């Protein structure tokens, strides 16, 4: 092939090809890194929550009068909610999964203050809490209703109130007991000097969409039986499939009047709560993705523009070549190969730049290092993009009639 001629032709008019190569280098750098960051975020976004998320809604109530009796109100509310037809189970919880609100404590396998500890979100829940979440138990059993402790005066009092038994997530169990023998063991709670026996292990429960270095805290949970302290209550209600709207309507209509010393702040489906919490992942992915797509689009336009210009200025030469025996296929091949040379030199620079930016980004937003197969994928994509962009101009070049050579402009 005529690669040498091609190179010398490119070199003679080098400004355009150099511009395109630099654009391709930047486009590849952006594409690879954005794809990686967005992929990492979407992994968090789409990770199974372990919850029966589509059939749960929750109610936030708040006692505001001095005659409000929290313990009595929660008992009456739960009895009523659990009696509504279509409800599988309802429970009061201290924090709602799939939100960032709530608190964590350090846990360890030994009472020693210096022993290694693992942080986990603490969820204080009333009887049937596990059933309400709709999570799957990997082993053991749910906590007994008798273990549920009465409400403490405030959140800080609740910190130190521990029932004799708890249910934990598999992630926390494995972190604290690496030998995977957590079931039946005693779990020690730092900061409050308490302990409890692990009676059940939940396969998977994502409490919050956490990304980055703290992401392990998304799935490390300890569920403690207890009535959370007042004056506010968050009731989660799990309904039979398809009956959520009906139950929510009944709650909205009747619940407030059942106890005037507290008000219903709102009711919301857990699916909506989860989607709101993840809103920032969605919007940041859209921003990053949009920029990457724009960079690619503009680069493709650049390749297209340069090729079209080349075809236009070389019309007579192409005609001459066709007249002396080159076939359409040769003309097509010429433009494709020429473009491929330019793209590839851009890709070469881009790979180095992408790796450099990857190192910088992994330091900045604390991600693991960019895997190399992203570069391979990006390169392939940019090659295809280049070929697609040059397609129309190359076809137009191939269609030039040999007769052009005989004409003057």
């Amino acid at each position, binding site marked *: 092939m005529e690669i040498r001629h091609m190179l010398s032709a490119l070199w003679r008019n080098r400004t355009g090809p150099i*511009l395109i190569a630099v654009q391709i280098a930047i486009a590849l750098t952006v594409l690879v890194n954005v794809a990686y960051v967005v992929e990492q975020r979407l992994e968090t976004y789409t990770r199974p929550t372990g919850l029966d998320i589509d059939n749960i809604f929750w109610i936030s109530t708040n006692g505001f009068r001095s005659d409000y009796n929290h313990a009595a109100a929660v008992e009456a509310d739960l009895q009523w909610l659990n009696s509504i037809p279509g409800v599988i189970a309802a429970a009061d919880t201290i924090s709602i999964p799939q939100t960032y609100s709530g608190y964590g404590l350090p846990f360890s396998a030994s009472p020693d203050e210096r022993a290694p500890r693992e942080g986990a979100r603490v969820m204080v829940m009333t009887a049937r809490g596990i059933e309400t979440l709709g999570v799957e138990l990997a082993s053991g059993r749910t906590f007994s209703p008798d273990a549920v402790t009465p409400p403490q005066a405030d959140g800080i009092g609740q910190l130190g109130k521990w029932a004799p038994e708890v249910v934990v997530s598999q992630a926390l169990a494995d972190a604290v007991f690496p030998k995977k023998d957590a079931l039946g063991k005693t779990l020690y709670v730092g900061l409050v000097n308490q302990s409890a026996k692990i009676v059940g292990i939940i396969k998977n429960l994502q409490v919050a969409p956490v990304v980055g270095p703290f992401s392990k805290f998304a799935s490390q949970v300890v569920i403690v039986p207890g009535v959370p302290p007042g004056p506010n209550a968050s009731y989660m209600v799990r309904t039979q499939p398809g009956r959520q709207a009906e139950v929510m309507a009944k709650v909205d209509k009747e619940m407030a009047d059942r106890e005037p010393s507290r008000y219903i702040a709102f009711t919301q489906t857990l699916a909506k709560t989860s989607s709101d919490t993840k809103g920032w992942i969605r919007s940041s992915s859209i921003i990053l993705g949009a920029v990457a797509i724009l960079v690619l689009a503009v680069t493709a336009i650049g390749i297209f523009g340069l090729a079209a210009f080349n075809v236009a200025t070389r019309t007579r030469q192409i005609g001459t070549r066709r007249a002396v025996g080159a076939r359409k296929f040769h003309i097509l091949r010429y433009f494709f190969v020429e473009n491929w040379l330019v793209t590839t030199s851009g890709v070469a620079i881009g790979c180095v730049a992408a790796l450099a930016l990857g190192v910088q980004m992994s330091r900045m937003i604390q991600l693991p290092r960019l895997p190399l197969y992203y570069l391979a994928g990006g390169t392939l994509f940019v090659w295809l993009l280049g070929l697609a962009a040059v397609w129309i101009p190359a076809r137009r070049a191939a269609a030039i009639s040999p007769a052009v050579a005989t004409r003057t402009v």
Partner: protein
Amino acid sequence: MLLHDLRLALRSFKRTPILTVLMVTAIAAGIGAAMITITLYHARAGHPIWWKEDKLFAVALDNRGSDHKGEELQKHPEYPPNTLSYRDAKALYASRIPTHAVRMYQTYRTLDPGRAGIKPFGVQGRVMTADFFTMFDVPMKYGTGWNRAADEAPEPVVVIGKRLNEKLFDGANSVGKSVTLSAKQFRVIGVVDSWMPTPKFYDVNAAFGIAEDFYLPFGWAEALQLPPAGVGCVTPDAKVNSFVDLLTADCNMLQYWVELPTRESVDRFRQFVDNYTVDEKRHGRFVRAPNNRVLNVTDWLALNDVIGDESRVQVGLAAMFLGVCILNTLGLMLAKFLGAAHVTGLRRALGASRKHIIRQHLTEVVVVGLVGGMVGIVFAWLGLWAIRVLTFIPGPNDSPDRLVMAQSLSHMDLRMLGLALLISMVTGIVAGLYPAWRIGRAAPATFLKT
């Protein structure tokens, strides 16, 4: 002359409409993306109290135990916690070096309007010492704040935010009226006017949260055992089983700010803080090497990385995108000028000077740049609107303030508009300088022969 150049430019655009549209679109997209990210960055990078830069200082002490868990996951484990424990704040408050000092934290209460038709609702506020209003130049619509004696007592008085005043009292002067917060009555003594420092420098853990609904004298923290919005216990032997424990353990929960009038008083106060932690070390606390900070607002916002890497990454990406757009326009422009070189050659042969040719082509690219810039501003405006809609969809449990916050974060002010125009001019010139010079340099004869 300029008019003539403009007319030539217009003719050139008409000759190659698709190419012109492509160039304008490329520049517009680049500037649009750059302006969106710069606007978001600009809002986060604000300094809402710049006129007190050398007066206001935040205090941080490193009271962490030797093996505090979780810090290895932090980006800067060497930074001290950005809140103070209750006991340390109390000790520092005794210093007479600062002219003003404030210790405070965010808390939540339920407000009962006591009126038919309005449900009770949750409100967020701040329990804090009296100097807050003076130190941070808080604008008052009605009434005033309280004095230090009211902190001690504590007196049942409250200052409310403008928004809450509108909700409860339809915006009228409510000084002297009573407000029920979680079943406890307080007398309104002041109403804050519109005030939303962005970022909320005095509480970086809620840097883009909204302004408070209410402000209570600090004594109520203990008297009502008001729960803090965030607590971090940082020593392995901290034990917290009641609110009282929280006040004595190494559990960090308070923001601490001082106003220091002179450089000399800053040094003296730093010395005072260091002496304090050295003293405490003798009692078995502050086990690490001294790592205290007394920082002005700029350094404080930087230490806490209020801007965030996310917005830095976005600006970086947008800058790269703008770079691609400029290169692209440069390439297209060059192709276009060279494509029409025979016309230029003819003009040169007929007596147009090289300078004139360059100026004519520069006019053309600046016009492309400016039009691109204006379209880009429209793109940016649409993009910011989309971000507002996508990010901040208010839910039923959301206060409308989140939307207010979102608006202020994604608001493009006049300075940003000016910047956009400047960038578009520079873009046009950068993209056009080489092509214009190149076409001006060419000898007329090369283009005249066929």
